[in-house]
């Protein structure tokens, strides 16, 4: 069992040997703890609520009551799953509600959906640079995908978008061990 106590100068977490469970107990509590930790936190915040209200408005204006029905599904999933799930469901609903509509018409609804992800990012750390970074990245990837779809086709656009994401993610994956000086360990383990 771990106990955490807060003092004026520092926050501490202390575990004494008498508090330590036996091996069997720790195995059992390890399972319980893992289940607890493994449950994906939904990171709900008031900013997410604001984004949901914005989504309600845009969906209502797009399809009326059908939009509200889709919005209710989004709200339910927002309470159960992390933000990416209502975001993805929102996009699927958007395409279902307005299949032939141009991007400019659905832009307000898309912006309010992106607001859901933005709220998730700032729920724990309200860093302006993170907001700017997310917005810039989303706009750049979206622009490249849109441009690829225009000059080629959807498959090329999807491939380019996913490729860009994979490249950037792999770069960050290698960059951290490199800066920590443990690249050799990574190389030998892979």
């Amino acid at each position: 069992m771990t106990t955490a106590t807060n003092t004026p100068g520092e926050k501490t977490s202390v575990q004494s040997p008498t508090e330590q469970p036996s091996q069997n107990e720790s195995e059992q509590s390890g399972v319980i703890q893992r289940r607890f930790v493994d449950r994906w936190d939904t990171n709900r915040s008031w900013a997410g609520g604001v984004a949901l209200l914005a989504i309600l408005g845009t969906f209502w204006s797009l399809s009326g009551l059908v939009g509200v029905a889709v919005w209710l599904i989004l709200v339910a999933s927002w309470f159960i799953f992390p933000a990416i799930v209502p975001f993805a469901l929102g996009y699927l609903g958007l395409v279902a509600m307005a299949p032939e509509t141009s991007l400019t018409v659905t832009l307000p609804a898309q912006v309010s959906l992106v607001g859901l992800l933005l709220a998730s990012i700032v729920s724990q750390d309200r860093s302006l640079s993170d907001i700017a970074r997310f917005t810039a990245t989303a706009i750049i990837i979206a622009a490249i995908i849109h441009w690829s779809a225009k000059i080629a086709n959807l498959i090329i656009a999807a491939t380019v978008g996913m490729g860009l994401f994979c490249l950037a993610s792999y770069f960050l994956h290698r960059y951290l061990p490199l800066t920590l000086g443990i690249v050799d360990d990574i190389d030998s383990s892979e």
Partner: protein
Amino acid sequence: MRVTWRYWITVGLMVVLAVWAFVVESTTLLIGVAGIGAWLLTLQYRFVRATQATVAALTVEQQVDRTRVTATETTLGSLVVRTVQPSQVEVSVSGSPPVESDAPIPCCRLQTGETIATVSFELTWPVAGTFEFDQPTVTFSDQRGLFQQDLDSGSMPAMTVEPRAPRNIHVGEGGERVAAGFGEHDTGQTGAGLTPAEVRKYVPGDTIQQIDWKATARLNEPHIREFEAETDLETILFVDQRAAMSTGRDGETKLDFARQLALAFVENAQELGDPLGCYTIGDEGITNAFEPRTANQHYRTITQCLRSLETTEFSSCAPSTAALDPGQARRTAEALEEDDSFSTRLRPFFDATEQYVRRIADQPLFGAVRTATTRRDGSIRMIIITDDDNQTELREAVKVARGGDGQVLVFLTPSSLYEPGTLDDLEDAYRRYTEFESFRRDLTSLTRVSAFEVGPSDRLATILAAGSKRRQQRSRL
């Protein structure tokens, strides 16, 4: 950096949206893909930044309350994780106590926003030796559980576990304490060296380099200065770890005393730089064999081996130790002169010289000594540390060990000093001790052989005092 199943689920969601975009031919869904991708990349970059900042401010300390303990003792250990600034990521530190310690692997968690976390744990050390902790493994995780990074960081304390050692060791002859063969050894020879021995007149055959020009000028005729020869004394230790060596109280068994003595010889050899070999002998034969060498690592290996030495299990199929002395057998056979049926029937049983040799050769200690001596010749010091249970075998082993012109030191742990309940009947204990003393003197009477007793001084003093009292009572009568 490692990504978790949550990361892959998110990527899977992107793929689903991309495929569905192709199915319904909608660019809008691909914009959704871009949104999720940007979300993941932003969180990944945030994790990279937070981990770098946390690593720069992180201190991990593995501590133990003592660095020197006796085997089977329990110590307290602690794992302290500290950051200068509140941690921006979740930090989980797994301590790595040596596998020789009987302890669970402790885990210390520093939650986001905390600056210090401590976990304490108990360590039991059943095995003697020197052990070093591995570096703790620090795992950084982001708050959403998408990314992880492992890093080995922190102090690695070393722990020296001493075997349970007796404190009142007596090494001596007939109850008199003697100094064992520690220190430098006088070879009685001159030769190459640094310590001047003598100045003598030049004789034909001496080299010009040997002439001491100052002595020659002073004495008006050529003189030679000779130096004490410096040689290494090759030593081989034989340490008995058979089941009989487990006799004695807990922590004061024959083996405990034998081990302490052997360790002293190893330490002495290391100080003098003497080549040292070591054989440990179990019930089934040689259990460890180290050829004589002088490398520091070699001394450490022998020390480690001796510290972890335990008595072996007695095997019922081990050969019998009751072998008949061939001299005694010959004399008995000669005594059976008459040709009656009784003598005829008994004679084959005493005609056992060949059987004696075969049975002795099967004995572990004898076999070990013979193995060691057949591989080398010249002046070697053999040190045998055993008990007095197998006297015939020991006598023959000593005879083999002194082959060449080597010296043999025998250290015996008399059973009468170790067996529990011995002091209940002091008269019997004294009688058994005198029998042992007779055997020890018998060994010492052999050329280039010295035999000593090793045992607890308090018990020996009690037995000797009882013997002295008995003699006084007899003299009064």
